[in-house]
């Protein structure tokens, strides 16, 4: 829930999956789901390596 993350003050926010599975996508077959999850993690790592001044939402 990006809006909640923003309202409580998280600074680096990655918009990924849905509430019951933030790093999961049950609509995909396992192979594609893992591929997608790797992209999510990659985006998160990118966020850690990015300098920011204010709350930032990173899209996968």
């Amino acid at each position, binding site marked *: 829930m990006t809006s909640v993350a923003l*309202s409580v003050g998280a600074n680096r926010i990655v918009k990924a999956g*849905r*509430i*019951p599975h933030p*790093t999961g996508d049950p609509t995909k077959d396992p192979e594609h789901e*893992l591929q997608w999850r790797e992209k999510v*993690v990659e985006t998160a*790592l990118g966020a*850690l390596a990015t300098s920011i001044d204010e709350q930032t939402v990173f899209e996968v």
Partner: protein
Amino acid sequence: MAEKIRVVHYINQFFAGSGSEEQAGLPPERRDGAVGPGKAFVPVLGGDAEIVTTLVCGDDYFSDQPDEAADALIDLIAADPLDVLIAGPAFNSGRYGMACGKVCQRVQERLGIPAVTGVSPENPAADVYTAYIYVVPTGDTAAKMRDAVPPMAALALKLARGEELATPDADNYFPRGRRRNKFVEDFAAVRAVTMLLKKVRGEVFETELRIPSLDRVPPAPKLQELENARLAVGTEGGTVPMGNPDHIEAVRATHWAQYPFTGEAALQVGTYESAHGGYDSRYANADPNRMVPVDGMRALEKKQVYRELYENFFSTVGCGMPIATGTEIGHAIAQAMKEEGIEGIVLTAT
């Protein structure tokens, strides 16, 4: 006799009796009359008002597409003559509270009818929506329904009748940041000194202006060298070893823990469960990497995108967690990370 005030009530799938988390994807629907907690409002609204329609939507359906869901719900009543909308109360439920706030805001914008909802002070909706709509403070859980209904009903009736509201304290709503001028006997210098003397003497005093505490944390500087970084993964989704050995509570958790991975390249299915009471856990139970992405983290570690992954993941349950507890737990996890030389963490949230 004056016409009855026509009320529409918005509730989620759980309060509508449609099911719990497994029905959180329920699309917008409309029902006649009062449903679920609406029935608690009926005697309090009395003979002056009637809940003519109830709108229902699943919390996940709504939070996935809040604008579309709010509009779809309002489309269902757009042609009806209505005087006020009541949403919830949502208590501490984050998704539900945000949905209630959004529906109230949108119905005001589109149909020009007033709206009121109720959430606990810890609910993020209390921060986000009080600027736009009237929000009544409630207790934490539905156990406090009986206390929430009367102030919400009273406020709804006042708004429906176009009556001027009294102060937030008198009419039971969160301060909206609005200022109204009024005449007082003493001028400001007198009031300021009087207040200061009370404060200095340790007496009770009432501030005239409440300064909001924003509690923003400045962003941490970026990782200097991602390729060389030691990182960790964690979650507030409550992923714990089968049996929840540390008894992390399903709601209002008081502690956190760190747990080893049960597999080298990924978390093994069937070795963890979800302790979190706020979401449908079947997807995470079927594959815990959907909550704690160890397989993804390992894959990128193997590709040397970063140097190494800490051998445990951090876990707590964020369901209904007060900000103060979250802050404490955050500090404690950061301290543990520092002791282990961990420079950054990927934390998932539900």
